[in-house]
């Protein structure tokens, strides 16, 4: 049986092809999905997605969303997704530092929420690069 992965963002289709296995970060921890997985619906955290093509692992930074698995079809709906290979390491690192600085400066409930979200996004992108190398 083949497993098909489809990663959708509001702008475009990021990934739509066959994979061997994926490791998905959900809100309640990481799950690995192999062919013939039971149909489930799960949330997707702001974290990295690992994809196995034959013997090669790829990473992708996912910016939070939702996944539906069933019938050997994985549909991942996320706000934004970037392949690890498409991220500029320097830029990602800079964004992370800026996000950290913003969080330490944040005042009030609202700013903290915003800064925390930004920091998690930035960290995920950096992790996606580090995971590859």
């Amino acid at each position, binding site marked *: 049986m083949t497993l098909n992965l489809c990663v959708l963002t*509001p*702008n475009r289709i990021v990934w739509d092809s066959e994979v061997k296995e994926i490791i998905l970060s959900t809100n309640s921890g990481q799950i690995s999905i192999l062919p013939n997985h039971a149909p*489930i619906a799960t*949330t*997707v955290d702001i974290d990295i997605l690992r994809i196995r093509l034959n013997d090669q692992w790829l990473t992708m930074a996912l910016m939070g*969303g939702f996944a539906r698995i069933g019938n050997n079809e994985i549909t991942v709906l996320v*706000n934004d997704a970037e392949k690890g290979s498409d991220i500029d390491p320097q830029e990602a690192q800079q964004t992370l530092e800026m996000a950290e600085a913003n969080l330490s400066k944040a005042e009030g409930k609202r700013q903290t929420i915003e800064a925390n979200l930004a920091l998690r996004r930035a960290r995920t992108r950096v992790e996606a690069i580090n995971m590859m190398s």
Partner: protein
Amino acid sequence: MSCSNLTMWVSSKPSLSDTSSLSFRSCLSPFQLPFSQSSYPATSNSKSSVVHCGLRELRDRIDSVKNTQKITEAMKLVAAAKVRRAQEAVVNGRPFSETLVEVLYNINEQLQTEDIDVPLTSVRPVKKVALVVVTGDRGLCGGFNNAIIKKAVARIEELKDLGVDYTVISVGKKGNSFFVRRPYIPVDKFLEGGSLPTAKEAQAIADDVFSLFVSEEVDKVELLYTKFVSLVKSDPVIHTLLPLSPKGEICDVNGNCVDAAEDEFFRLTTKEGKLTVERDVVRTQTADFSPILQFEQDPVQILDALLPLYLNSQILRALQESLASELAARMSAMSNATDNALELKKTLSMVYNRQRQAKITGEILEIIAGANALV
């Protein structure tokens, strides 16, 4: 005799073209004003210089109108090309929104019986409202920006009358400059639209309204944008963005609900050489969904993850529609301006030719009179 005749010609013709330029002033004002003013003192001065000066001035004017026409025509074509790109963006976003609506619909079916409480859907007594006003980044698009700003101001007045507090989130340069000039309107954030709306911009707006709403600073978020109806028609509308209704429906202010499973999208086509727009209403198929689906987390958590996505795609769609309306408005405004410039050019050349003829006739008359006097 010939001289008085000449002044008659000269003074009557520019006034004719002036009245015609008055009506065009709305679209061609920067080019028109200096000329229409300067033609008056020229006619009242010495008669011999009137003709020469008038002729040269007319020639300048014709040239300037010609240039304006070229610019407006180019802008029209650019806008037409961009409308097509805006349409592509909508098409690219379709798989996402379709799947999202499908999933939301099904999960909602399964959750009907359960008592769920999600922060984004909590309906609180409204004390403060956030208005997200989506405007364009550029002018020269007819009444597009004005219409949406007027709508926003009217809504602000309404809220004032109701005694509800409000704050504005302005998206787009035109809206920003409007609110900057009016410091008495509280503005939470200024955002810029960019050339083509992407998920990033939608995300920025979504983050802002999300934190405003969740931290209970505001109790309701309304989105004011221009709905794209057709190439010649677009309506400024108000949509309630938050609280989201868990049924996956969005309601406008009057409580008219739009079923989320019904997705509209527009398509640019050509009909008999003219650009037209088709609007399709697509009923998303919501049948094929495994009934034995398990939820990895609490249904509440899953809705928590889904609704922000839904919020994002709603905002993105509003941005896309607004951009399409702006471009369509610019297209028709520029098409009108081109037509007007053409007409103005025609009138001016007629005046120019008449003046030239009058001048020649005058010179011939002078020569003949001189010759007659010699005899």
